[in-house]
Every structure is written in structure tokens, then in C-alpha cells.
């Protein structure tokens, strides 16, 4: 908990006495120890879920990843690539190997294999549960490296400590939250680090590593498009602001070439790496950077007069070619219905897109725009520190600090569109807050030191080993130069002037004297103000730590398959209904039975109950989901027909009315109606609403009271308390006594949270002749109507 403070103060304590090299060594060792502690902190703060609950996979998607990992560890990598999963999306199936981001699975599978080859018998589940905490420790180390490249180790350590416990990231990476994001954030930050490192060093080695890190990111998460758009944006920014250098070229060009080649190796991306619009920006910038590079080259070998002539020539010719190419591209892109963008990307560009066209994306709560409180909840005080960090990055603006600014600006936008992308914002916020805190501590502690009696006469002490000179606010201009910037500029100055443009030379000339100048112009804040400010900052940090620990312990560690409540006498009551139902399904139904439920429970059913489901959380086929939605919102008989045509044996509904579990199927029901109605127009949302209000009491519409979801949820519910009082909706239900004709209850869990019904078998047709003809006629007439409704007939 003390690490952020000690990260900044630690080296200061040792700074005074020893010689410089010893000081460096001490600083290095202390920084290393602090980093290890930060890693331990990042790992252990995520273990609340294991301690408070149990070592179990959380939520929905992690169950799928867990199942895939199990398959991988059992059948090996080749079977994994070729895996066609017939236990989901019945009767369509799903090609898992080609539609899954394999990074997380392969990572955990490799860890499992290594550990087991050392004869440490960890189960796949254990490895999966602890993958996320391990990788969040890696992510905070990556944040240290990235921030160190931008603003030096002090800022790096602060940023790493902040990232280790930022609630937004904790929410996605507690032990058991075995999701893509867990490793992807590490990959994201590490890729950015390598990019900055390449940019600062111009080393082709780091450029290659960068491409590999990018490859890992592509393997891990669909969010890789953020990288492949952000880096080109930064490159473009550098070019436009006249910061083009050979280092920029080395940082960018190999990444595009190697990165795209590697990305297309991942089956789920494949040719999308060159075909879809998400990647378009990178290629455009790739062309631009080559043009610019050529221009600089020509400029270098031609005399200024000739160059002017050449420019006019090239520009006029180039413009014509560019126009032609762009026209073709636009034509190609426009010919595809979504303009070459995927639905989720379009939602990012146009936040209203999903709610208009794709209800299935809009129905997921994590795709909603966040509210202001969620910013405070997820990044807490960082939200206030970020602006200060941005200002610090402008003093001075380097290639790397401009990248960080660009990163924070874009991620703030994206997090504003989807609450889920708050996760991308978190590292950026941590890095900038780390910079801000570190700068602030720098200024303040130096002012204190400068004014303390005894050492005031010796200004050299005030100069830190790694940082950083900054002037006071009074003269408005301040300069911060990281030590790695100094050799860089010197190096640049050594290069042949012929190779450089004049502007760059000018810059170097301007830049070179600045460190010595600011050293002399060192101005300080009043002692009392500094002391108070330091105390306040420490208080702020403490507040952040308290909030993070609270968030990790209380808000984000519930596994969501187990619910707990505290009874009045302080006892803990456990609601383990989901696993009760899945366990019942897995032991007491036939292996090949098909279970229909809303798609939320698809992954869990396949993973925990090992039964075939119709739809699951990989919402790749909207029509199929709409079919299930239609069945749930139809009357019993039609629903039975739809389910029967799909070979369904059991229907599972989640019902919270007895214990007051709010995210049950009745509360999700309007989305079923909407999604079903989107494909089958006879389901109309207004039929289920009374005066625009969704209700299930006596005022509810007859369509609502007769639909399958209502009946399955409330079947014999009235017998529990005699009135049928629904504790979620806080009302008595509308229709209390009814019988099921086509379904029979086969299992209901202890707290009624999961109810499983079986489809009754088809009725025998041995009847009187007249009746038979009647019924057959009615069936056939109905079928005509249904022909449009049910796609499976």
C-alpha cells in the first residue's frame, strides 16, 4: 500500500550520501524490489474473490474460455484449431477454432502444460482462475516500462502501482475472471511500450518485438483494432507536427508489415487484417509515411530550388493518383452494407447505431454508455489527476508523451461510448496520473529540500538522479527532460547535417541548452505550501488505495454464479441455485438432450452441464437468437412447436421472484421480444406493454400473461405464499392459477432461481375420425400462418 509513495521517495533518501554509481545501483535495486512488491500487490488484491467465495470461474464468457482450455489441454493444439463444436448453436454448431481469439486459451494451456510437465498437478481450472491475476501483475510491470520511457522511472513506478489496483481493471481480472481482457490489457500496454521504446531508440530489434507483441494482442482480444488505429494516428500526428524521423519510420513500417502478416495468421482475423475498414487507417498512414520519407530523402539530395520544382511536380501527380485510389477504395467499401465495419466498431463510431439496428449488441449491459458515477467508481481519483498528467506531458512535448496524450484522449472517447471500454481507459489514466503524481512530488519535495536549512546551500542535491528539472508555475514555461532524452538529442546532433532537415537541427540547437538553463532558473514553492500539498497528495493516494481495496473486496469479487446474502443475525446465506440446476442437468438428463434458454446462460450450460444449447453468449447468429426470443414470447402451443422443431427437450428459465434476484429472465424479457420481433415481425413490442409500461401484474396485457416466459416463470408460484407476490417487481402477479399443457416442470432449484421444464411428448393421434380430420385441418391451417413465423418448418 505504501509503494506509490516509497516509489517516489525511496531513491531520494539514498540520493544524498553515496557516489553516483552507487546511488544508481541502490536506485535500481529499490526500484526492482518495489516492482516486485507491486506485482505481489496486483496479484493479491485480486484474490478477494477466492478468499471470500471460492476458487471458481466467474460469470459467463469465462466459462466458455474455460471449456475451450479444457478441450485444448485434453486434445492438443491441432484438434483445437479444427474443433467444430456441436454442443452449441444446435443445429448449426460453431467452428470454435476459427471463431475464437486463441491468445488467452493458448496462454493458460501453455502454463498448464509447463506446470504439469514439472509434475505439479494443478488442474486446468486452477490455472484458469489465476491467469488473470498473474497477467495483471505483468500489466503493471508493462505500465512501469511504458511510463519510464515517457517520463522516467519515478513516474513509471507510480503508474505501475496505480495500475496494480485500479478498480476498472480489477473488475475484469479478479481471480476467476478468466476472460480475454485479462491478458489483453497486458498485451496492449506492452505493445505500446515497445512502440515507444522503438520510437525512442530507433532499434529494429524492438520494432520486431513490437510486431510480436502486437501479434499476441491480436491473438488475445478484438480490441487490437484500437492499437492498429491509435499508432497510425500517432504517426500521422508526428508527421503533421513536423516530427518525422527515421526512428518513427522504424517504429511504424515494420509493425504494419510484420504485424499484418502475423495478424492474418490468426484464424479469427485472417483476411480481415487487410480487408476490413478497421485496418484501413494503418495502410493509409503506411503510404503516407513512405511518401514523407521519400520527400525527406529527396529534399536531402536536392538543392532547395530543385526541390521546390520537384514538390510541385510530385504533388500534382500524386494528388491525381491519390484521388483515383481513394475513389476506388470508397467504391469498394461503400459496396458492402456495413461499409466494411463490424457492428461493434460501428457502435463505437456512432453510439446510436446499435440501439437502432442491432438490439443484440444494445441488450448487453456492458455495451451501454457509462454513467458519471461509474467513472468515479472505476478510476476514482485518477479522473482528477489525468488533466494534470496531460499538462505534465506537454512540458515538454516529446514523441512519447504526445502518444500518451493521444492514447488518453481516444480512450476517454471510447469509454464514453461503451462502459466495457473503460478498461482501455484505465491504463492510460494510470499512466497519466502516475506522471502527474510523480511530477507533483518532484516539485514539492524539491522545494522542501531546497528551503530546509543545512542543505539549502548545496543545490546539486536538489538535482535528482533521473529527473527532471521543472520550473515553477510563475514563469509559465517548464521543461522536463528524461535522461534518455539527453543522449538521444546528443546522438541526433552528431548525425550528419546533410541527412537532417533544417528544422530538426534548429530543434536540437534549441533543445540542447535547456537542461543547463533550467537548472539555474530553478524556482521553488513556499515551504509550508509544499508540505501541505505533499500531505494532501498522500491523503489522496490513501483515499485511492482504500477505495480500490473496497472495490476489489466488495464490488467486483462476486462470481455471479454464487450469490450470498447476510441474514439479520450476521450469518451468511448462500444461493447456489445456478450450479444446482446445471449439476442436475448434467447428471439426470441424457447426454444428447438439447436445452433451450436465453443466450446468457448458453456458455454456462455447455460448460457446467455439458448439454447442447441452442444459443449462447457468442451471439453470432441473430436469427437463431430471435427464434428463441420468439418462442419465449409466444403462447405455449406455438412455443412448443418452435422448440419441438428444434429438437429441444428441456427449457431453462431463470426466475428471481422468490428471492428477489433482479437479473432474471422476466426483466430481460423485453429484449427477447425486441430481438425476436426484429426478425419475426408478428412479435410486436407494444403487445407486451400496457401504455408503454412493462408490467406483470393484473394490468398486464393478455399477450404478456399468456406468453411462455410468463408461464414458465410463474407456474405454481402463487402456492408459495398464497398471493403470488413477486419480490423483484414488487407486485402481485397478474395471472395466478394456470396449468401448463405442453410443458411439465421437471426441476426447480432450492430458491426457485432456475426452473427447468420438459417438453411434453407429442400427443398420440388415435382419435375419432371426425376429430382427427378437424384437428389436422386446424393444424395445417395454422402451419400456413406459421410458415412465415418459424423458419425451422
Amino acid at each position, binding site marked *: 500500500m505504501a509503494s506509490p509513495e516509497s516509489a517516489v521517495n525511496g531513491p531520494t533518501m539514498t540520493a544524498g550520501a553515496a557516489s553516483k554509481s552507487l546511488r544508481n545501483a541502490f536506485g535500481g535495486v529499490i526500484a526492482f524490489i518495489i516492482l516486485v512488491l507491486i506485482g505481489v500487490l496486483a496479484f493479491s488484491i485480486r484474490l478477494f474473490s477466492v478468499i471470500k467465495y*471460492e476458487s*471458481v470461474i466467474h460469470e459467463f464468457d469465462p466459462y466458455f474460455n474455460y471449456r475451450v482450455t479444457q478441450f485444448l489441454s485434453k486434445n492438443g493444439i491441432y484438434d483445437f484449431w479444427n474443433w467444430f463444436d456441436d454442443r452449441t448453436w444446435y443445429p448449426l454448431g460453431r467452428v470454435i477454432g476459427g471463431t475464437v481469439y486463441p491468445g488467452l486459451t493458448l496462454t493458460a494451456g501453455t502454463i498448464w502444460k509447463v506446470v504439469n510437465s*514439472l*509434475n*505439479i*498437478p494443478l488442474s486446468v481450472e486452477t490455472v484458469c482462475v489465476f491467469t488473470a491475476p498473474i497477467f495483471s501483475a505483468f500489466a503493471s510491470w508493462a505500465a512501469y516500462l511504458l511510463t519510464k520511457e515517457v517520463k522516467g522511472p519515478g513516474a513509471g513506478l507510480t503508474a505501475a502501482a496505480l495500475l496494480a489496483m485500479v478498480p476498472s481493471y480489477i473488475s475484469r481480472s479478479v481471480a476467476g475472471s478468466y476472460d480475454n481482457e485479462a491478458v489483453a490489457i497486458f498485451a496492449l500496454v506492452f505493445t505500446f511500450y515497445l512502440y515507444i521504446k522503438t520510437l525512442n531508440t530507433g532499434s529494429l530489434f524492438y520494432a520486431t518485438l513490437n510486431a510480436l507483441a502486437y501479434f499476441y494482442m491480436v491473438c488475445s482480444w478484438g480490441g487490437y483494432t484500437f492499437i492498429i488505429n491509435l499508432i497510425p494516428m500517432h504517426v500521422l500526428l508526428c508527421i503533421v507536427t513536423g516530427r518525422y524521423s527515421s526512428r518513427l519510420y522504424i517504429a511504424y513500417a515494420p509493425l504494419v508489415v510484420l504485424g499484418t502478416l502475423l495478424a492474418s495468421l490468426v484464424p479469427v482475423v485472417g483476411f480481415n487484417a487487410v480487408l476490413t475498414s478497421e485496418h484501413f487507417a494503418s495502410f493509409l498512414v503506411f503510404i503516407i509515411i513512405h511518401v514523407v520519407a521519400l520527400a525527406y530523402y529527396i529534399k536531402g539530395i536536392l538543392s532547395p530550388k530543385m526541390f521546390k520544382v520537384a514538390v510541385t511536380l510530385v504533388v500534382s501527380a500524386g494528388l491525381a493518383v491519390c484521388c483515383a485510389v481513394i475513389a476506388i477504395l470508397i467504391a469498394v467499401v461503400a459496396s458492402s452494407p456495413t461499409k466494411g465495419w463490424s457492428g461493434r466498431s460501428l457502435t463505437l463510431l456512432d453510439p446510436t447505431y446499435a440501439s437502432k439496428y442491432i438490439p443484440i449488441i444494445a441488450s448487453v449491459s456492458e455495451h451501454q454508455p457509462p454513467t458519471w458515477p461509474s467513472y468515479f467508481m472505476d478510476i476514482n481519483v485518477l479522473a482528477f489527476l489525468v488533466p494534470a498528467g496531460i499538462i505534465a506531458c506537454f512540458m515538454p512535448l516529446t514523441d512519447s508523451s504526445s502518444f500518451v496524450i493521444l492514447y488518453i484522449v481516444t480512450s476517454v472517447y471510447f469509454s464514453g461510448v461503451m462502459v466495457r471500454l473503460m478498461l482501455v481507459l484505465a491504463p492510460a489514466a494510470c499512466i497519466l496520473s502516475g506522471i502527474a503524481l510523480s511530477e507533483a512530488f518532484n516539485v514539492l519535495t524539491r522545494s522542501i529540500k531546497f528551503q530546509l536549512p543545512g542543505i539549502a546551500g548545496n543545490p546539486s542535491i536538489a538535482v535528482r538522479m533521473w529527473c527532471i528539472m521543472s520550473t515553477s508555475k510563475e514563469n509559465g514555461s517548464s521543461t522536463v527532460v528524461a535522461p534518455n532524452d539527453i543522449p538521444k538529442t546528443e546522438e541526433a546532433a552528431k548525425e550528419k547535417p546533410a541527412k537532417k532537415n533544417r528544422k530538426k537541427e534548429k530543434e536540437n540547437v534549441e533543445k540542447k541548452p535547456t537542461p543547463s538553463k533550467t537548472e539555474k532558473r530553478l524556482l521553488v514553492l513556499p515551504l509550508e505550501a509544499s508540505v501541505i500539498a505533499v500531505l494532501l497528495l498522500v491523503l489522496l493516494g490513501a483515499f485511492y488505495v482504500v477505495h480500490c481495496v473496497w472495490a476489489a473486496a466488495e464490488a467486483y469479487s462476486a462470481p455471479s*454464479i*454464487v450469490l450470498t446474502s447476510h441474514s439479520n443475525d450476521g450469518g451468511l446465506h*448462500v444461493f*447456489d441455485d445456478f*450450479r*444446482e440446476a*446445471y*449439476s*442436475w442437468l448434467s*447428471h*439426470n438428463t441424457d447426454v444428447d438432450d438439447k436445452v433451450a434458454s436465453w443466450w446468457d446462460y448458453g456458455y454456462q450450460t455447455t460448460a*457446467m452441464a455439458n448439454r447442447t444449447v441452442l444459443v449462447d453468449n457468442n451471439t453470432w447468429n441473430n436469427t437463431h437468437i430471435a427464434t428463441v426470443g420468439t418462442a419465449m414470447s409466444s403462447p405455449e402451443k406455438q412455443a412448443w412447436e418452435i422448440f419441438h422443431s428444434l429438437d429441444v427437450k428441456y427449457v431453462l428459465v431463470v426466475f428471481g421472484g422468490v428471492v428477489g434476484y433482479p437479473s432474471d429472465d422476466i426483466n430481460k424479457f423485453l429484449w427477447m421480444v425486441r430481438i425476436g420481433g426484429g426478425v419475426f415481425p408478428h412479435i410486436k413490442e407494444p403487445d407486451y406493454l400496457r401504455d408503454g409500461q412493462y408490467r406483470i401484474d393484473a394490468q398486464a396485457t393478455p399477450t404478456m400473461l399468456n406468453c411462455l416466459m410468463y408461464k414458465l416463470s410463474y407456474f*405454481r408460484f402463487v*402456492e*408459495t405464499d398464497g398471493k403470488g407476490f413477486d419480490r423483484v417487481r414488487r407486485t402481485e402477479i397478474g395471472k395466478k392459477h394456470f396449468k401448463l399443457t405442453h410443458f*411439465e*416442470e*421437471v*426441476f*426447480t*432449484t*432450492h430458491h*426457485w432461481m432456475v426452473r427447468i421444464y420438459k417438453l411434453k411428448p407429442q400427443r398420440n393421434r388415435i382419435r375419432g375420425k371426425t376429430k382427427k380430420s378437424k384437428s389436422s385441418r386446424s393444424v395445417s391451417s395454422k402451419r400456413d400462418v406459421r410458415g412465415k413465423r418459424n423458419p425451422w418448418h
Partner: protein
Amino acid sequence: LSLSQVENTGKAAASDVLLAFPPTEAEHLAEVKAQAASGKKRKKTYAHLIVEPTDVPDAPNGAKGFRLALHNPLSPGETTTIEVLYMLTHSMEPFPAEISQSDPQLVYYRDSAYILSPYRIKQQTTFIKTPSTNVQSFSRVEPTNRAGMELKYGPYEDLPAYSYSPVLVHFENNNPFAVVEELVREVEISHWGNLQITEHYTLAHGGAKLKGVFSRVDYQSRPSASGVSSFKNLLARLPPRVHSVYYRDEIGNISSSRLRTDSRKSELEIEPRYPLFGGWKSTFIIGYGLPLEDFLFESTDGKRYLNFTFGCPLSGTVVDKLTLKVVLPEGSKDPSAVIPFPVEEHMETKYSYLDVVGRPVLVLEKKNVVPEHNIPFQVYYTFNPIFMLAEPLMLVSTVFFLFASCVAYLHIDISIRKG
């Protein structure tokens, strides 16, 4: 099905005594015990007799035979009293085979009014005790009497050898028919002071299958009338000083369990995730640790031996197939088991934490295990304590080499060009 205790006393005259069982019973025969009684009523003393299966050459219809060796050969004309206790599993058949949630469970019990015997029987009586007074029907082989919970067949006089007269009793039995279809117990010995036991259960309700609907409303609101033959909790009797007990299944912890410990025994009350109705199944795992000094001893010849209880710790259940694996520490040799009844034995190798050569595993398998099999058995082996240090030394040397290589790396300049 379980615990159908049928006691028979017979009188015979020979040096060996043969017992015979019909083939259907022999399949489910869990245990045969015999003891010879001597003395009069109150002062009876019992001497255990050795029972071993034999072939009976002239037995009709493949009847299985068991031989009892008497301590003192009987001279002709002399009489002795032998008590034979045998246990059958799965001897009751639910009828109707499928019942709904509100029905009581009725079962058939099939037996013979006359005991199957290779000898001529002078006089014989059979008593059948039923768990409830509700007896739907029973076969009559005169003279037959029924009084409350007891049925009396006989006495019959002068029966020829291998006489057989089937009887069928149909009665209500709402006892939970908890059957552990398969139980794998793994006992892992660590000479660092711990005995780790892991038990994998496949539990089933062997009674009448539940037909159609399971309604939670009925089950919760009328517990006496609904699902009377179902059961929802089990009791596991564990040794005292048990620690780190867990109860889980393949999808995670099961929160409904309770542990009571005192100095003599520990009782773990467990509830499966859902109440078990007829035909329903469930699987779960119980694991616990025990202090090693309670179970591991050194014998006089320098060997070590483990003294542990065979059988299933769950009370009131039968186990169709029990596999007991005793995992000995790495480096132990010559394992041998001493068990008071016949079991199948073979060896395996298991690799656990940082093992190099693997741990020898003695696997004992037995079918039809009843609570009477919960008796101690011994596994003898030799072990050199030096092997205990192998793994710590391995770890220490790994860390040492790591640091050594770090130091080496920092002091060696491997760049090609100086500068």
C-alpha cells in the same frame, strides 16, 4: 437392497460345512460371516469360522458354495450351532418401478421359504422383518404367519437337500436407497506429517424412479407427504482430528455441509446439490487431511505400516465398486497389504508435486462393499527418510542456479564488438 439382514441358524454334522446360495444372490453377496456358538443360552461363546468360496460339484442351477472350516471336526451324531450372517446388496426391487413424487415407495423382496442347503434339513423357520407395517402382499408357504413388522415362514420339517420354494414380499420401504455406484478413495501419505484423503463419489438413488414432475412447491410445503423416499443429506463418519475438509464437485464448492468434531470422531453432514429422488444421480468429492502419527506406525522389523479403515465413510450406503488407492511416498519399496477379506490388488505409479521417479500406488478394488467392511487394514512398505529431502534440495538448487546464472550473465560481456 441394502442391509437386508437375514440371519439363519442351522444345525449340521460334519468336519466341513457347506453353505449354498442361489446364483442371483451370490452376485450381490457382500459379506458372509459365520461363527460357531457353544454353551447354553446366556453363556454362549462365539468362535469365528473361516469362510471361503468353493465349488459344490452336485449343486443344481449353478448355486454357489461356501465352505466353513470347523475348529473341532464333528463326529457323527454330534451337533453344533453355527450362526451365519450374510449380507446382500440390491436384493429389493422397487415395484412399481416408477412412482410419482407423492407416492410411497414399494419394493419386492424375493427369497426362498426354505434355506438353500446341500444337506437335508430337519427343521427350519424363516423370519422376514419389514421396515414398516405396510405389507401389500406376501406369498404363502404354509404355515405362514404375519405379525406387525415380522413375517414368519415355517417351521418346516424334513426338507430334502436343495429344496427351494420362492416367496415374494411386497411392502413399503421409504428408506433412502443411497447407492454409491463408484467410490475412488485416494490415501496419500506424506512423511512430512500429513495423510491426505480424497474420495470421489458417484451417488445414485437406487429406489423407484421418479416419474414425471418434480415440483419444488410440493417438496417444500408438504415434506411429509411428498418425496418420502428421497433423501437430501448424508452423514460421513470421519476419523478424529480431521482438518482441511472440503466438499465439492467438478463445478465448484458445495456450500451445504456441516462438520462436527470431537475427540473420538468427526461427523461431516453433507447435502448434495439437490435432493435425490429415485433414479437421480450426483457426483461429488470429499477431501480431508489427517495427522500422520494417528495412522502410520513402525513395525518390529523396521517396516512402516499404514493402519487405515477400509470401506466407505458414508453411513447407510452400499458401494457397488470401491477402489482404494494408497499413494506411498516417492522412494518407498515393497508395498504389501494385509486385508481381512479378499480384494483385487495391483500397482500403479503416480506423479505428484515435483516427482521424478513417481510414487508407488497400491490399488485395492472390491465390489459390493457394505458398512461391515469398515474395518482396519494395513499396508506395509519400506521407506528411507533421505528421500524426503529430495524435493526441497531440488528447489534450493534451482534457485541457486538461477542466481548463479544471473551473476554470470552480469559479469560476462557477450557483445561481439567492443565499444
